[in-house]
């Protein structure tokens, strides 16, 4: 029907027709798949949700005399430094280390700030304190470094997120008798509440279920700047069981993303903290889906009632947790689900309001010609095994 090159021509000439997923689904309901596919060139999906498997690469630039950093803290958050002399990796879920017990006041837990907050601050242009120790060598004689940095005083600063954009996730509940603090927020005992974190029919990868359109090299909106899909994400699991509409019944595909953080906007990169679980990062990601044929529109027309997620009981702290079965996203978005005869209130964790804004912003970029589409240079694997960590060697048995 149309190629990515043809779409890019239309973007340059200003005649491209772009719809958000919501607009597209409404159009399909009104005029059908064939007519929609004829009229629309690009569909944009946006999401804004916690993505803790994220982090930033920083290259400080060399000091004089130079240092080979072996340990480094940014605003008290440990950054990994076991590679290039002034290369750092700041993980979003790394907790700030307490500076000393005297400085902790009672109401504050240690570590309610973390890597995600430092990344947000840097993107916002704030100053961050850097403390580092080095290994003195003939090449790098300096032993310590104590300074302040901003995004403008460091050589490079980009997000490199090993796992983002989960294609489907789980619904968390707590069948036990005490409150649990999880990466989905607090879960009340005796099925007191349920939390889901995927946008369902608005989630980017639910609308390209077999990753036919997106692959390595696809250009995206990442945190308010330009980013790219670089690889399959960690825990990428394309072999998850699927419904006849090709959508997975639980966590499945994931993507690794990269993008220049110096261009990003703190509105779309927000440090966050889950009580008694730890810090994380909320991130806005927008994805363009080229309407190459009618199949693209058919996939993007998927509705919440056609998508399911498993309800998982977090009270059993094991790798495989018991499930209360599957529930549709239409049920989840109604605010209540029935579990074993009990009506349970459901809250989301992905922000629909901000996800819509991400989609609108990417739509504007494409319409005003500042964002063109790229064809993937390689597809994301669709048959990857999922290996759990079995523990070998002699085990200490705790009696």
């Amino acid at each position: 029907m149309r190629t990515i090159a043809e779409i890019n021509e239309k973007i340059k000439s200003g005649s491209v027709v772009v719809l958000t997923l919501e607009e597209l689904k409404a159009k399909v309901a009104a005029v059908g798949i064939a007519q929609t596919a004829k009229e629309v060139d690009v569909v944009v999906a946006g999401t804004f949700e916690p993505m803790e498997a994220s982090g930033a690469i920083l290259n400080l630039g060399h000091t004089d005399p130079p240092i080979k950093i072996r340990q480094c803290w940014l605003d008290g958050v440990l950054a990994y430094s076991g590679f290039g002399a002034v290369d750092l990796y700041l993980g979003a879920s790394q907790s700030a280390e307490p500076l000393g017990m005297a400085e902790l006041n009672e109401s504050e837990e240690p570590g309610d700030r973390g890597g995600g907050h430092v990344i947000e601050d840097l993107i916002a242009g704030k100053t961050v304190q850097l403390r580092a120790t080095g290994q003195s060598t003939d090449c790098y004689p300096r032993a310590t470094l104590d300074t302040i940095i901003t995004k403008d005083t460091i050589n490079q600063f980009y997000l490199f997120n090993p796992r983002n954009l989960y294609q489907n996730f789980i619904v968390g509940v707590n069948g036990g008798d005490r409150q649990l603090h999880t990466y989905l927020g607090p879960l009340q005992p005796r099925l007191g509440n349920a939390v889901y974190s995927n946008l369902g029919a608005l989630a980017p990868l639910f609308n390209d279920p077999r990753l036919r359109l997106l692959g390595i090299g696809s250009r995206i909106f990442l945190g308010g700047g330009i980013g790219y899909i670089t690889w399959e994400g960690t825990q990428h699991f394309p072999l998850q069981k699927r419904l006849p509409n090709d959508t997975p019944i639980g966590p499945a595909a994931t993507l690794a993303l990269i993008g220049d953080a110096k261009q990003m906007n703190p509105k779309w990169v927000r440090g966050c903290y889950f009580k008694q679980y730890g810090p994380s990062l909320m991130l806005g990601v927008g994805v363009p889906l080229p309407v190459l044929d009618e199949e693209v529109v058919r996939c993007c027309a998927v509705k919440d009632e056609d998508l399911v997620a498993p309800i998982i009981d977090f009270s059993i702290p094991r790798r495989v947790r018991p499930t209360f079965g599957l529930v549709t996203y239409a049920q989840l978005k109604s605010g209540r689900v029935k579990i074993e005869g009990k009506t349970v209130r459901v809250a989301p964790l992905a922000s629909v309001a901000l996800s819509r804004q991400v989609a609108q912003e990417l739509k504007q970029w494409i319409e005003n010609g500042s964002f063109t589409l790229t064809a993937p240079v390689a597809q994301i694997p669709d048959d990857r095994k999922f290996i759990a960590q079995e523990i070998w060697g002699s085990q200490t048995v705790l009696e």
Partner: protein
Amino acid sequence: MKKRVTLTFPRRMVQMPITYRLAKDFNIAANIIRAQVAPNQVGKIVVELAGDIDQLDAALDWMRSQEITVSLANREILINEEACVHCGLCTGTCPTEALTLDSKTFLLNFTRSRCIVCEQCVPTCPVQAISTNF
């Protein structure tokens, strides 16, 4: 008219059937929003009083004369609109559904009159956008 007040009882006053006295002597409907009352301890209740304006003032004066501390400045939940990302996580822990997401805009909606200031939303918020005024 309605007035929301916080009452703090000295230990010896905990035995007094306060809502009965308010109804009987002042014709005031007392809706208990939140209470922490136990034998032989300082008690605290947040209560919404509904009745005639003069009767309300008379009731507050009477309670003060009984050494009940009456506070009109109530603890309230504050939402930082700038910080809120409208994720909706707080709506699942709010027991009175004072916090909801708008069904069309999906923006967070706070209905203050429903709030019982249980404060469960405060630690739930992942971006620390919810706090109390004191």
